[in-house]
């Protein structure tokens, strides 16, 4: 096992402007096999200039790793403007101690990311595999697609311990999302596969669904009026109303399933 600690230096976010740092170059697979000095020389974007990781982060490396799989990256400091944490990562582990900025785990293929705080918008965007755990809230467009695309998350597992923002799981095609809190409007918008479980409340879930499954354990506000009631069914001992839809997408395509109490 190897642990790479990256602590954002205090000066980076102490100015009047909080200029984002883009760190998709700091994933376990990309840092694996590098010495401390080499890691410090890896380039990251800070605004419109490229900087050395070592200039923005305090870097320390403990232990040895036989492969990227055994690399754990721990990120610390004020991460609220640190974007793309773990984006595109294929293996290994990242732990972010605190709130993180946008695109955390975007295009992730494997490995595990734990955010010990909130994650801003587009966490898990276009995620292909791996595990993303957000201990706080997730922002809007969790596990969604990029603008114009028609596929969001296709695989992997995401757990949000808090609430999720608007349009969670938009265009989701596979994988699983568990939201332990509430979901803001339009969770599962355009969903076509996979499963979303919302333990809290939801507003207008499942609009334009063509596949996949959404289960809402709390209350639903403003149910989409173009779903068809199928039957009452029991899941884990609780009674749910099962709907299919969205008929606003035409009957042929309305293959989504919504379970509502």
């Amino acid at each position: 096992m190897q642990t790479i600690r990256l602590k954002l230096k205090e000066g980076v976010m102490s100015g009047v402007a909080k200029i984002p740092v883009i760190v998709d170059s700091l994933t376990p697979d990309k840092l694996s096999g590098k010495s401390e000095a080499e890691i410090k020389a890896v380039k990251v974007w800070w605004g419109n200039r490229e900087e050395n990781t070592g200039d923005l982060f305090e870097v320390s490396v403990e232990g040895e790793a036989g492969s990227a799989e055994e690399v754990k990256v721990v990120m610390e400091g004020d991460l609220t403007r640190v974007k793309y944490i773990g984006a595109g990562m294929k293996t290994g582990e990242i732990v972010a101690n605190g709130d993180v900025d946008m695109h955390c785990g975007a295009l992730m293929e494997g490995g595990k990311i734990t955010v010990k705080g909130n994650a801003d918008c587009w966490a898990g965007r276009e995620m292909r595999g791996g595990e993303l755990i957000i201990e706080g809230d997730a922002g809007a467009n969790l596990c969604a697609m990029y603008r114009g695309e028609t596929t969001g998350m296709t695989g992997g597992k995401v757990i949000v311990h808090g609430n999720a923002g608007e349009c969670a799981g938009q265009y989701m095609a596979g994988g699983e999302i568990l939201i332990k809190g509430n979901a803001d409007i339009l969770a599962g918008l355009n969903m076509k596969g996979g499963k979303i479980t919302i333990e809290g409340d939801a507003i207008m879930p499942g609009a334009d669904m063509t596949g996949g499954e959404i289960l809402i354990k709390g209350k639903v506000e403003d149910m989409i009026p173009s779903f068809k009631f199928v039957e009452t069914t029991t899941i884990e001992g609780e009674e749910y109303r099962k709907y299919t839809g969205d008929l606003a997408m035409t009957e042929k395509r309305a293959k989504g399933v919504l379970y509502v109490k």
Partner: protein
Amino acid sequence: MAVYGYEEEMGVKVKLISGRTVAQGQNLDNKLSDEYFNAVALCELSTEDMEKIGASPGDNVKVRTKYGEVVVKAKQGAGYPEGIVFIPMGPWANAVTSGDTRGAGMPQFKGIDAEIEKTDEPVLNIKELMMRYKEV
């Protein structure tokens, strides 16, 4: 500036919307004028809501949301259903809206949960309003 945290009950609960008006449009290039102030530092509300807060046209009304509060002149609005108030788009409406776009690039300018009450506090002019932003 006080930020409303739902801990205290205030006036009447309404939905706040904003938008263009002819007078607002005519003074787009003339924003530091009295005409613009008169066109924009106001709140149109229904007769019912006017009665509920005990105000008459021309009285000052305080509009408060999760994001801030602002005082504007009450104006009788034609065609408003009860519970909807309108402030022409501009600095006074924006004093009580949020810049958080929640992943969309567009703040929500319409349909904001707000509370209104009659007040004796003055309507700030544009420079006073701007000063408020510089303080924070």
